[in-house]
């Protein structure tokens, strides 16, 4: 028995509970950083990861972008502000959607960028609605990834492009290997909620199975690994604030999870990948 790794709680509820505390732990973007030199600040590195996605997505003025799992809405607002593209962000989290819409409004982008409740595996849009499907570090929260990729392919116009980055398995873990890290995976489940990781090759296969032509598939585990040091430092620096929000045990679990993730990166159990694929015109 060997398979993808699936961890924990229902993602929307988990997000709603922890989002405020996570702002103090993961900082504004709530996603991994891309460290080219290793000496970047976390905010610069998280911007750099968004830049990696933007370089693949190549959004243009007037295009329509679907942001699947829109998080804070910062990436969507960047796409609207910097490229003049229309962005629709979806998330199953009401807190997330409300916060993201507030952000777009505060930046006077609400005519270009809107967020609504939605499920990336069952999106409520007609076929060929979007030029770009943007899936930034959200696919690990969707167990039915074949449905996610299938729906992204359906929603793309001919010539459209999917770009996706996420935590990934380095390889499918046999059950006995997985069980040897049992308590570590259960800790990650408690901290990060329900997550199901797959190898980079899985995403490539799913794109191809849905008629998408792979353009880029890169392992960027090395560039993302310094993220954990920053998260751990934030947990220490902001401990009293975070403890007030989510409790001492949860705060310590987060700090411990950073150590686990760093070790999983070192052991090539987990890593990070980025992929883009186009729908034939």
């Amino acid at each position, binding site marked *: 028995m060997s398979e993808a790794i699936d961890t924990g709680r229902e993602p929307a509820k988990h997000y709603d509970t922890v989002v405020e505390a996570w702002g103090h732990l993961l900082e504004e973007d709530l996603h991994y950083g891309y460290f080219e030199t290793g000496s970047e600040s976390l905010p610069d590195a998280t911007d750099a990861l968004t830049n990696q996605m933007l370089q693949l997505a190549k959004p243009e003025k007037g295009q329509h972008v679907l942001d699947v799992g829109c998080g804070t809405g910062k990436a969507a607002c960047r796409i609207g502000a910097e490229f003049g593209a229309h962005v629709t962000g979806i998330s199953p989290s009401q807190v997330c959607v409300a916060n993201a819409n507030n952000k777009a409004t505060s930046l006077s982008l609400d005519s270009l960028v809107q967020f609504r409740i939605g499920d990336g595996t069952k999106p409520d849009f007609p076929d060929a609605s979007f030029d770009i499907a943007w899936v930034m570090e959200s696919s690990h929260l969707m167990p039915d990834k074949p449905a996610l990729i299938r729906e992204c392919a359906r929603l793309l116009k001919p010539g459209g492009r999917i770009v996706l980055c996420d935590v990934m398995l380095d390889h499918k873990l046999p059950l006995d290997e997985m*069980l040897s890290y049992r308590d570590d995976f259960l800790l990650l*489940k408690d901290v990060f909620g329900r997550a199901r990781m797959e190898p980079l090759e899985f995403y490539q296969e799913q794109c191809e199975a849905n008629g998408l032509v792979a353009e880029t598939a890169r392992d960027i585990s090395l560039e993302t690994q310094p993220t954990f040091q920053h998260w751990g430092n934030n947990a220490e620096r902001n401990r009293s604030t975070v403890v007030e929000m989510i409790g001492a045990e949860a705060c310590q679990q987060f700090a411990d999870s950073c150590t686990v993730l760093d070790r999983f990166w070192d052991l090539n159990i987990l890593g990070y990948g980025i992929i883009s694929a186009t729908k034939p015109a």
Partner: protein
Amino acid sequence: MTIETDVAGIIKAILKHQGLPDSDLELSTHLYGEGIGLDSLCVAELSAMLEKNFGKDPYSAGQLPQTVGHIVDFYEAD
């Protein structure tokens, strides 16, 4: 409470927690795939909850039980 009842209760709790369909569990019920569909993290949770309840579990002992009955057998072997 029998061992079988305790084991079934733990498995049902995991199914509920993971949003998997509830299932009538018998000793012959298969745990994975076409059975009740426990995936690797469900197995990790099962291992941890069995250990917490019984002080040991078959997975940590190097076994790979295929059915509910195999788990029960592990504890009845004592």
